[in-house]
């Protein structure tokens, strides 16, 4: 199969600008007749649906949530990047592009990433105009902070609730279009199949979650903006209902998945506390601006801490190992996520973990509190040697910056992070892999587009902090409104698609049979128990580090589990009713197949890059060892129904950056 990324000709700097101004257009009178389905109303979907509605297309937007404002994007904390260079610290479109390519360990497309950097500045303007209350300086101008893997301050933020505020902005823009009648909103509707007619995506089968009724919806094109699949690991920082079903159903209809094994494990999450745990909570990366990561140097201290006999504040400075600062002096605590996570795993594997399970390290704000306190005391003409006062002033500054995160930490753990360092451990957070798309964000199925976390496009093998929000909004506000014209300009003569076509009937029937099958098994195990078991296999064998032997074992285990699932799962309730257990059952069934594809992908990639760490491929210092000669490609998988999944390769060409060993030392 030939995979054409459709990257426009021209120099990196000119590609997008030129392409945009020579693209095919759809005239306003035709736009009114053209229907577009947008599945997902998170940042990517809501921004796309709103912008397409503004252009005059007739949009139908679907979400399984009860409101677009609930999408998982709402939970993003830390911020959104943009190459504004407001801080005058040397930032530029090129630098954001370069940081992202390097951060992704040279496994993403140059042209896509450059475009992302290029439109990033417009996103901030758009959001400000919508009323997003970004953090501001005293002079009334926008404030920035730094995120991991970069040396400039280009992250815009809204307290620790950036995702919430951006999503509300997009949701409001969407609501405006709903009121204007250009967008029809279908909440509590879950897409369960894609309808393909004559090779083109022409509609979906959706289940009305309130009534259980299956509905057919037709359109000239379908956009998926359905988020990431981190919940294949059961425990992750994703919201409970995030799932892969929309994308996976498209895969069953022939769409290809790219780099499915590239998973981001976030270094700063609240550690697991018990077997009943349903999800993990992120502590924003922004905390690494001021928090220092450490474990005790001596095993005796570790033991004492674990037994509750010593408190971390009693460990002397010289007895602490600030291992990130030691190993990576240039970036220190702000190394990229994959590097920070692996380092935490290593110290814990070496026996220095500081909680009972040995799977936690400290994130300590004492130095920051002191530094800010001194500066405040100095500014206010107070005694900088008064320790209690300095602490008090410093805590206040820290509270202003991270108050809600500290509060959240205390609510969950019951300990006060102002007084004692936080305990953190890596957790599954984001999936760089996703549906394969070309430069137009179109999948290999004509008329099917994928935006946001559900595509694979921009982050290579590791995503930099504050770049997912940027990508979701870039895709939705500034890319798809243009690129979809390339497809739709060929559809202006296509009459509106009819849902009584045989393809719709067949897809609806297949969906119904699948749900009936799940309902009828009547086995002995809950969906939840299967999901938990799947997650454990994925985490143990295809998590922070992987090896060929383990991956082979994992594949066998997953195949066996999947078989058992279809013989022994029990789904209570009925199909014709509001039934969250059935929703979950269909999603877990898809996760079981996706998991296997992830394992195959991890097995194929005989190198370590970004979030994909194969134990066989590392430097003597334990850093990831890439193999550019053999693996500078995007792995593009065809599920291939009942047969063996097929791998296709999209070679990555680097014409503007030199492939280097990623060093943060």
């Amino acid at each position, binding site marked *: 199969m030939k995979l054409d990324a459709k990257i426009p000709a021209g120099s990196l700097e000119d590609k997008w600008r030129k392409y945009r101004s020579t693209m095919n257009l759809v005239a306003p009178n035709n736009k009114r007749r053209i229907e577009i389905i947008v599945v997902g109303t998170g940042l990517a979907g809501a921004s796309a649906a709103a912008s397409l509605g503004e252009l005059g297309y007739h949009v139908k937007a679907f979400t399984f*949530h009860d409101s677009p404002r609930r999408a998982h994007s709402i939970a993003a904390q830390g911020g959104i990047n943009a190459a504004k260079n407001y801080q005058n610290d040397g930032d530029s479109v090129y630098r954001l592009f370069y940081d992202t390519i390097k951060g992704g360990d040279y496994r993403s497309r140059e042209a896509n990433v450059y475009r992302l950097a290029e439109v990033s500045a417009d996103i901030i303007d758009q959001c400000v105009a919508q009323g997003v209350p970004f953090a501001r300086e005293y002079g009334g101008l926008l404030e920035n902070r730094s995120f991991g893997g970069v040396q400039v301050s280009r992250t815009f933020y809204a307290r620790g609730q950036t995702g919430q505020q951006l999503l509300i902005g997009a949701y409001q823009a969407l609501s405006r279009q709903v009121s204007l009648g250009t967008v029809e909103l279908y909440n509590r509707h879950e897409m369960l199949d894609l309808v393909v007619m004559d090779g083109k995506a022409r509609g979906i089968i959706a289940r009305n979650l309130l009534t259980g009724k299956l509905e057919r919806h037709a359109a000239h094109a379908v956009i998926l903006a359905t988020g990431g699949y981190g919940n294949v690991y059961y425990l992750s920082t994703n919201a409970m209902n995030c799932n892969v079903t929309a994308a996976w159903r498209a895969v069953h209809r022939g769409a290809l998945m790219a780099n499915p094994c590239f998973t981001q494990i976030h270094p700063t999450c609240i550690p697991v506390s018990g077997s009943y745990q349903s*999800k993990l909570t992120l502590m924003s990366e922004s905390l690494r601006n001021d928090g220092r990561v450490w474990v005790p140097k001596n095993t005796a201290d570790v033991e004492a801490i674990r037994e509750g006999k010593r408190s971390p504040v009693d460990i002397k400075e010289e007895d602490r190992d600030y291992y990130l600062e030691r190993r990576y002096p240039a970036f220190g605590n702000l190394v990229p996520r994959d590097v920070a996570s692996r380092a935490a795993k290593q110290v814990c594997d070496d026996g220095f973990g500081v909680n009972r399970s040995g799977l936690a390290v400290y994130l300590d704000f004492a130095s920051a509190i002191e530094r800010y306190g001194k500066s405040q005391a100095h500014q206010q003409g107070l005694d900088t040697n008064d320790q209690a006062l300095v602490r008090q002033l410093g805590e206040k500054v820290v509270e202003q910056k991270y108050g809600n995160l500290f509060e959240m930490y205390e609510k969950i753990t019951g300990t006060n992070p102002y007084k004692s360092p936080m305990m953190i451990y890596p957790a599954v957070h984001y999936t760089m892999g996703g549906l394969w798309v070309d430069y137009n964000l179109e999948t290999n199925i004509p008329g099917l587009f994928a935006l946001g976390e559900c595509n694979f496009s921009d982050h290579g093998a590791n995503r930099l902090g504050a770049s997912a929000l940027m990508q979701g909004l870039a895709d939705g506000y500034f890319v798809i409104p243009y690129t979809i014209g390339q497809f739709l300009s060929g559809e202006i003569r296509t009459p509106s698609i009819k849902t009584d076509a045989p393809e719709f009937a067949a897809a609806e029937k297949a969906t119904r049979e699948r749900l009936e099958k799940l309902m009828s098994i009547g086995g002995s195990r809950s969906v939840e128990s299967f999901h938990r078991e799947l997650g454990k296999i994925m985490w143990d064998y295809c998590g922070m580090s992987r090896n060929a032997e383990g991956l082979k074992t994992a594949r066998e285990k997953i195949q066996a589990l999947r078989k058992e699932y279809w013989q022994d799962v029990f789904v209570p309730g009925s199909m014709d009713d509001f039934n969250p*257990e059935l929703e979950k059952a269909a999603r877990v069934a898809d996760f079981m197949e996706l998991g296997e594809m992830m394992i195959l992908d991890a097995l194929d990639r005989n190198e370590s890059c970004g979030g994909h760490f194969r134990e066989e491929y590392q430097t003597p210092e334990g850093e990831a060892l890439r193999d550019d000669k053999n693996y500078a490609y995007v792995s593009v998988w065809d599920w291939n129904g009942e047969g063996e999944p097929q791998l296709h390769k999209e070679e990555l060409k680097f014409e503007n950056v030199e492939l280097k060993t990623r060093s943060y030392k």
Partner: protein
Amino acid sequence: MKLTLKIWRQKSAQTAGAFVSYPVEANEHMSFLEMLDVLNESLVEKREEPVAFDHDCREGICGTCDLVINGRPHGPLPGTTTCQLHMRHFKDGETITIEPYRAKAFPVVKDLVVDRSAFDRVIQAGGFISVNTGQAPDGNAIPIEKDIAAQSFDAAACIGCGACVAACPNGSAMLFTSAKVSHLALLPQGKVEHNRRVINMVHQMDKEGFGFCSNIKACEVECPKEISTVNIARMNREYYSAMIGSTEK
């Protein structure tokens, strides 16, 4: 810890509901929803239908979770959503009553799940700034005073959970609506169309069947994001001044 849960079970909006008691074993590190997960898993094991409840982020930000616990929306803790409530705030042997929001504008879907789409329609009536994609000036073109931005943020922090409505004996949505009106009206970008906005949103609120406000302020007490009733006062001001200048009926 051993607990007794008295949970409202109702098959659908059309059928009558009733409380059913369930024993459950929990520990104090669990979140309230994890405790319900444990109950549900045991129900599934017994081949009974689990208790339906809404939830998603479990981080206190999406506004999906919405239980009334011992008579209080989101339970006993101030400034805390149900999903952020942990079992250490309950006592061993306690009986906990769990019911859905009860408000005319939020019909019950099943068990503890209600339909809050009325809130979406209030936003659709005017809770936005009319700016198309690509029309925006530079983000720093209009400086905004830090304090004003912060006040706007405080209102924008609303998660749309609906606890204010559930807490109010009149089932009023004034806190929710006024939070949006304030968020936007405080910003220079939002000032432009604030008259139209406030009139349309208030009228939609009435149309959805939300009650009037009689200054009881239970909403502020139960709001997990501690949205202030100062916003209601601001909205009233905005509304009356908009109506005076308005040509709409």
